[in-house]
């Protein structure tokens, strides 16, 4: 059980790095690059990014998010210092700052997973032409996907603080 738990935690961190790394790639690199490519009328344009890069990045992104959540949930179930229900009830009544901290991290990660699969991916399919959509629907999808992605970038900051605070304490 200990080996399984440690391998699970290792996989959770690897998948989490892949997920949040790609989230930061989208927000800090791809979105500004697409804007620059659209504005550069004499350049090659954004088509190659949309056709070859974005679908691959989104594939790794959404499944890394899923693996991160599943391995995190399993860890909460088997790690002796935590419990799944205790974390998701924010450790209320337990007087255990580590449990409350990992609970906040778990909730933030869960909201982020919801945003990936319910808001970002379905709208990205419309934007990239993988699902049928009118121009007006694409414009709406672009805004919803953008704001969900930016929301996740914002939430990742407290989420990562709470994930490490479960073991190392809250820094404030």
């Amino acid at each position, binding site marked *: 059980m200990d080996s399984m738990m440690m391998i699970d935690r290792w996989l959770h961190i690897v998948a989490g790095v892949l997920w949040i790394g790609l989230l930061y790639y989208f927000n800090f690199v791809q979105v500004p690059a697409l804007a620059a490519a659209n504005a550069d009328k004499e350049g090659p344009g954004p088509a190659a990014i949309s056709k070859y890069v974005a679908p691959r990045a989104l594939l790794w992104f959404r499944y890394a998010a899923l693996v991160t959540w599943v391995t995190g949930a399993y860890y909460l179930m088997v790690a002796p210092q935590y419990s799944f229900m205790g974390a998701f009830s924010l450790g209320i009544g337990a007087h*255990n700052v580590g449990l409350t901290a990992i609970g*906040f991290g778990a909730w933030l990660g869960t909201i982020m997973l919801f945003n990936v699969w319910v808001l970002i991916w379905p709208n990205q399919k419309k934007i990239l032409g993988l699902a049928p959509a009118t121009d007006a629907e694409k414009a709406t999808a672009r805004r919803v996907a953008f704001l969900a992605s930016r929301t996740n970038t*914002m939430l990742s*900051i407290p989420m990562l603080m709470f994930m490490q605070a479960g073991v190392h304490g809250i820094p404030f």
Partner: protein
Amino acid sequence: MNPLDSIPGTIVAGIVLAVVLAFVAKAIAGA
């Protein structure tokens, strides 16, 4: 103006949220 429309606004919003939630978490845990 939505702070999420800019990268600096997104990062500042995340830091502010982290600080606020940290104090909420400490209050819940009685720490």
